[in-house]
């Protein structure tokens, strides 16, 4: 198609006349402006910019002109094609923007539709609370000790100064395993973990022992044959009841809020002496307006657990020299703590496995 035109007089080439070129340019620009969407612009592009478009054809004629005329015609056609291309690009951008805008509008969805296609999981609130308590101790530099729930009688009782005839053994209603003369029980407390720790490690010992324990309590709103305890044990040089108080005050404030502390009342446990019941200050009324307080029932204090100075007899049975070391121990119910921390009147939901209950707590308490 290209190549010298020898068929006709180049001077007479109509398409290269200035007014003709101008008309072509105007027609093209008008068509571009008239294109309303990208599809019609595509057609316009073919018609006015394509190989067979008037300006393209005119451009092809330039070669046929005498040399002195080429420069002039070339400039004229070139400018026209440039203007058309520019208009086309500009329109392209405009129409693309319009198209995108329209598309985004069309793709609008109702974002208030439900999105819960996949199941939601959650952890058990008692597990979460055990971990929370463990973290409080770990932050103090303590470690978390564990042991078996089916335990040797000696570790559950004898090593803890609960001899076979100790009246306190009847305080704890123990599940015994068969045969009875195998002396294996379901641990009634996490204290055997303390004994195991002392038997296998040298002081200083700073451990907390959370875990499941068992008593032959009929299952009701406030009793369960299985529940959870956390016990603490410190054995070091120069340990006193003041350290016990300090540790429990710290735990109380971390678990129940700043300023929540504990008080001791004399009590009796075979494994500790002196022994104390530990009450935690009511974190709801703070003891200020107890009369109407549901949580502490007007006491200002909530019974929390037991504690004391490790009985030297226990230290001896566990191989710790009571002349060099002293220690303290404490224990409290995790379920019970959960109940008053979260205003739960009946503990059974903790063990019934209704997924609605655990789900309500998600993965944080």
């Amino acid at each position, binding site marked *: 198609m290209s190549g010298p035109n020898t068929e006709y007089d180049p001077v007479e080439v109509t398409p290269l006349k200035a007014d003709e070129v101008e008309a072509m340019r105007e027609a093209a620009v008008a068509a571009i402006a008239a294109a309303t969407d990208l599809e019609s612009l595509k057609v316009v592009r073919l018609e006015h910019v394509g190989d067979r478009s008037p300006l393209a054809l005119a451009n092809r004629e330039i070669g046929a002109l005498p040399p002195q005329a080429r420069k002039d015609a070339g400039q004229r056609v070139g400018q026209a094609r440039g203007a058309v291309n520019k208009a086309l690009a500009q329109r392209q951008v405009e129409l693309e923007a319009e198209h995108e805008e329209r598309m985004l509008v069309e793709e609008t969805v109702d974002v208030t539709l439900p999105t*819960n*296609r*996949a*199941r*939601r*999981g*959650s*952890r058990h609130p008692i597990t979460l609370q055990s*971990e929370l308590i*463990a973290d409080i101790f*770990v932050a103090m*530099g303590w*470690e978390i000790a564990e042991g*078996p*729930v*089916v*335990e*040797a009688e*000696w570790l559950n009782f*004898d*090593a803890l100064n609960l001899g*076979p005839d100790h*009246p306190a053994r009847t305080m704890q209603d123990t*599940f*015994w*395993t*068969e045969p*009875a003369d*195998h002396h*294996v029980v379901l641990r009634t407390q996490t204290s055997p973990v303390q004994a195991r720790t002392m038997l296998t490690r040298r002081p*200083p010992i*700073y451990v907390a022992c959370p875990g499941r324990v068992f008593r*032959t309590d009929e299952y009701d709103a406030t009793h369960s044959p*299985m529940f959870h305890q956390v016990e603490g044990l410190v054995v070091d040089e120069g340990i*006193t*009841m*003041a*350290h016990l*108080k*300090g540790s429990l*005050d*710290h735990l109380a404030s971390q678990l129940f809020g700043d300023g929540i502390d504990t008080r*001791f*009342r*004399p*009590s*009796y446990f075979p494994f500790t*002496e*002196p022994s104390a*019941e530990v009450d935690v200050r009511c974190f709801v009324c703070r003891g200020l307006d107890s009369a109407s307080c549901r949580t502490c029932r007007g006491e200002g204090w909530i019974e929390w657990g037991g504690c004391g*100075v490790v*009985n030297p007899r226990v230290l*001896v*049975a566990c191989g710790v020299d009571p002349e060099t070391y002293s220690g303290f121990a404490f224990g409290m119910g995790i379920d019970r703590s959960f109940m008053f921390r979260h205003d739960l009147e009946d503990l059974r939901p903790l*063990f019934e*496995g*209704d*997924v*609605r209950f*655990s789900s309500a707590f998600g993965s944080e308490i």
Partner: protein
Amino acid sequence: MKTPLSWITEYVDVPDHVTTEELTARLTMTGLKLEGIHSPGAEIAGPLVVGRVLTMEPEPQKNGKTINWCTVDVGPELNAAHGTGEAGRGVGIVCGAHNFAPGDLVAVVLPGGVLPGGFEISARKTYGHVSSGMICSAAELGLGEDHDGIIVLPSGSGEPGQDVRPLLGLDEEIIEFEVNPDRAYALSLRGIAREVLVSVPGATGFRDPAIRDTPEANDEGHPVVVEDPVGCPVFVARTVTGFDPSAPTPEFIAQRITAAGMRPISLAVDVTNYVMLETGRPIHGYDADRLQGPIVVRRARAGERLTTLDGTARTLSEEDLVVTDDSGIIGLGGVMGGETTEMSATTTRVLVEAAHWDATAMFRTGRRHKITSEAGKRNERGVDATICEAAADRVVELLTTYGGGQAEPGVTVVGTPPPMPVITVAADRAARVSGLDISEERAVEALRAVGCEVSGTGTLHVVPPPWRHDLTDPQDTTEEVVRLVGYDTIPSVLPKAPGGRGLTRSQLLRRRIGRTMAGAGYVEVVTFPFVGEADLDALGLDEDDPRRTTLRLSNPLNSETPGMTTTLLPALLRTAARNVGLGTTSVAIFEAAPVTLPRATAPAPILPVDRRPTDAELDALTKALPDQPLHLGVVATGEAESAGWWGDGRPVAWSDAVDAARVVAEALGLELTTRPADTAPWHPGRCAALLLGDVLVGHAGELHPRVCSAFGIPPRSVAAEVDLDVLLEHAVHLRPSPSFSTYPVAKEDVALVVDEHVPAADVEAALREGAGELLESIRLFDVYTGEQVGEGKKSLAFALRFRAPDRTLKEGEASAARDAAVRLAAERTGAVQR
């Protein structure tokens, strides 16, 4: 221990300004915890007054009953207010009781009054009269169970119209204490009063009810032989003769023992209980006329029998201490008397026994025969051995005062109280243990206040008083000192632990497992580990399935579930069923908990406690315990993805259960492989054995339809159970960083037709091996069965990706590797490329 406050203050003076609340708060802080303050009259309201019976006319009724139409003087004002009686002298009351006579003083509740139980009194027409009130029995006033008759007040005890509450103790404050098992002395007024003395500021003037002049022992009393002075170190016997068995119990005794929770029975019995409450010393009374010959105290012979007061025939053990006479055994010493010498309504001679018994023997006998009694409770915890004579004398005094008898001159005293131990303790021990600044003087003062004899300086020699059997060690005296100085003064000091290691790796990983499962959409539950035959049957376990061998409890709460479970699944399936029953149709739950796998073991030794056990002894303890591996149990039912505006839901499938196990393994850096398994409780064709390398770690898949129906959950529910201990043991630690090639990837897809029984995992493994080291990954992306591959066949489509670590693959390299892979798969599994 419950007692009226007024009984306590009979033995100790408390300043007037000390309120009951302050008094009990102080006692609570020194170890005698207040359980509650009760008032027996709390439920009574309105006019309850003394009335004098003026007239009573018996009127037989058609129903065979005879009622008394009475006129009762209730004082001028109340007579006027309620007086419908004759001549305005009193009120008319219909009364069904007959144990009174004109002139008696009685308790009258008038219209407007309210009795316990919300029983409102009004004037009402009955038996042809208008009865303007009620003459009350003790039971009607909440003062015991005596319905036999109305209360007749002692003559001269009050004037008509006077409030009767103080006369009946209805306005008393009854204080209930929780007494710790080591403080048996506080199970008596004597002990409580002493605690008030040492605990309540300003309390003075302690009057010990056990200090009294007692007659000298002589040979004229009832003969007693103690053959076992260890079991019974002291035996005192006194006799009262000419006793009137019908004499009523004085009101104050009846009220006080009722307040303490005991039922008044007869003067003789009530007096022994009263003195026990007063002094802490249990007393036994015999009908002396029914005794035959001397009393002999000894250990029982095996097989001997005794019917105790409660009517139970008991076979005795050689450890039991018994009281005998010529007729044989007449009592279980210190625990419960026998029927043959029991005091009765005809007893006129009473032999009073005040004996000291060995506490351990009492505890064992009580436990062996399952007897709990007020006497046993005190005897097994330790009683003051030195007050037997005083207590017996007090009983004799009360019996003769109120029962009209005479003390016989004979006083039998056998044995002497065992000595109390001497405790040697550093004077500063209490200070060192408590962290308090306690001087030696303060420590000695505290010990003397509770009755100890203290000598020495620097090192104290402490002899506890005879009622404090709980004081045997330095730590015991330490507790005494600290509690009296005050637990509330102990400072709060946080101990400085050495740098800790934080959570152990296993603890961290278990938390990760919990979070992973929650993240995968499972809800954690906590279940009881008890299991029974019915559960194991419902799982469809074979007769010889090892999971049927459970560790059994001797005393299960529920006889249906006597074993410690070997699998978490029964409890999880029950839990799933409960949720479905509650309307939660899609349930996905998990639990991570130990199971108990019994093994043949020797018994756990009972080791000594006076030294550390040897390592061999500790090893024996550990070996006696069952295996208790941590398991993960998973159950899901309903939809894995719910239906919604986006379209259909997706029901849970066997693959969800397998994936739950895989997700947990991956959280620990491990990869599980599967192979077909046929294991209960799973569907035999839809159960995967889960393997870590060659180690079986659990099973997962769809549950057997019969299992679903047995547990009441929808068919096609799924489950998994995995041994987490094995996974935790192999969890990847310190994994080296991986590196990835950045050269272009070459992708090859292959579709292989195999017999439908060939596991896809086998085909994949063959492809993987055959493809060689250029293979980067392989993924099964489609399984097709149908006409195009023929019956009994399936087509498995795999996407293979090849890449070299150090160069771009040459033309044909990837396809050659693919061909090699297909060849090996064909060789191993009979696969044919489509």
